[in-house]
């Protein structure tokens, strides 16, 4: 073992906090100057940790969804009745949907409508909640990338019901999805049937707020909120949520996706619809690194 003289040791122990403090501050500055620095570090760590997260979150999931559900047993018959009722209702809606589909096909055929490009998608399990005090994001396990994992950056993440967020970092095994409730999230949306434009801004709480709507057309309570193609970051028409008023003149969006209990996410990459206005440091290393994630 290395033997040091006592005064030298004392000096070292007094200096080490100062040295480490300066080192950490330097680390912050480097990360500030070069966005790729912390993205690379984080993606590397996530790729290493992803299998471990998977191993540890599997039992949790099994306890919640598998055979070990004890709480569900008590409400089984009630749930059954409710599901039957819901199923009957949904079957009626299915007929309506099929009729509308047929009508839609006929109309498209007569209009020579050019369909929008089909997105590629991959499905991944949510293995970690990587949010912090001011961040809302989750880590998704993705199948080993066929090609460049950076193709996944910018992909739209949806759960079964609506948009949950967008991929901001992707590695070989994992991708980080910034949720729509994050403070940095800004998504152009279209409101209601006439598609009035607005911006949906995350505010760290459960419901993102709506800003920049036209004062002449305030968002109506209960109106559907869909993504808008303005800015080119999102494909149009993906369901996000419904408008709700918490207070007068302060409309929020109640997300359709169950953001606090995400299990599976589908990541849709739209090859012909890559972000134009959104700067992503990975794809444009020469561009100035802004911290705009959406």
């Amino acid at each position: 073992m290395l033997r040091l003289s006592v005064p030298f040791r004392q000096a070292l122990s007094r200096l080490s906090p100062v040295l480490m403090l300066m080192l950490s501050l330097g680390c912050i500055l480097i990360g500030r100057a070069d966005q790729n620095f912390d993205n690379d570090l984080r993606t590397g760590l996530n790729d290493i940790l992803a299998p471990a997260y998977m191993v540890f979150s599997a039992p949790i999931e099994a306890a919640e969804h598998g055979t070990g559900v004890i709480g569900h047993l008590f409400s089984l018959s009630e749930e059954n009745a409710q599901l039957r009722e819901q199923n009957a209702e949904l079957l009626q809606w299915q007929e309506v949907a099929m009729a509308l589909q047929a009508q839609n096909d006929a109309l498209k055929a007569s209009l020579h409508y050019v369909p929008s490009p089909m997105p590629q998608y991959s499905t991944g399990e949510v293995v970690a909640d990587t949010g912090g005090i001011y961040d809302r994001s989750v880590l998704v396990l993705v199948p080993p990338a066929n090609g460049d994992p950076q193709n996944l950056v910018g992909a739209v993440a949806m759960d079964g019901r609506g948009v949950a967020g967008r991929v901001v970092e992707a590695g070989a095994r994992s991708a980080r999805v910034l949720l729509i409730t994050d403070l940095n999230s800004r998504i152009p949306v279209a409101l209601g049937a006439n598609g009035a434009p607005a911006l949906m801004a995350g505010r760290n709480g459960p419901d993102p707020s709506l800003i920049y709507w036209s004062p002449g057309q305030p968002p109506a309570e209960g109106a559907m909120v869909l993504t808008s193609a303005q800015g080119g970051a999102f494909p149009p028409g993906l369901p996000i949520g419904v408008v709700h008023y918490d207070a007068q003149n302060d409309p929020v969006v109640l997300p359709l996706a169950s953001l606090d209990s995400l299990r599976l996410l589908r990541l849709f990459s739209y090859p012909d619809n890559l972000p134009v206005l959104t700067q992503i440091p990975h794809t444009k290393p020469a561009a100035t690194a802004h911290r705009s994630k959406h």
Partner: protein
Amino acid sequence: MSRLPTSRRRQSIWRLLDAAARWVVPSAMLAFGLFLLGLPFHIPGQALLRPAYAMGCVYFWSLFRPGSMPVPLTGLIGVLLDLMGVTPPGLWAVLLIVLQSATFISRRRLAPARFLVTWGVFTGFAAVVSLLAWALQSGLAMRLLPAWPVGLEILISAALYPSLAALLVHVHRGPAAVELA
């Protein structure tokens, strides 16, 4: 005839290994805890638990077993906390080192004090660190971030500390006791 004190006993390789393993326990436990708190338990406020846990552990070990929590290791754990979350890397390293330095300075008074006193001082330290975190993050984001999570963070830290300390006292006397090696 040699009369060496026990601390000068010839060290076998197993004893050295045992001592090293015991020395690593606090930081390994801290890092593993951070990892576990990242799992999707869907507890409300789970994101706030991680910094609170890190602050509690760093405070406790700096107070009662400073040898096992050297400053460079604290810095590394801070960077780990940053990278597991989304804060800029180095931010929590700075904050944890500030917390540790403050604990080192007040150590002589605090270590023999009653639990209520150490708890109260920890709450004060956690409040200052959380406010600093808010100020630094607001500065780096170049806008005023909402302040309510700071209050929540302080409350969670204060509420978590007694149970955390109860657990860590056991670890301190058992698996982490280097002198028992």
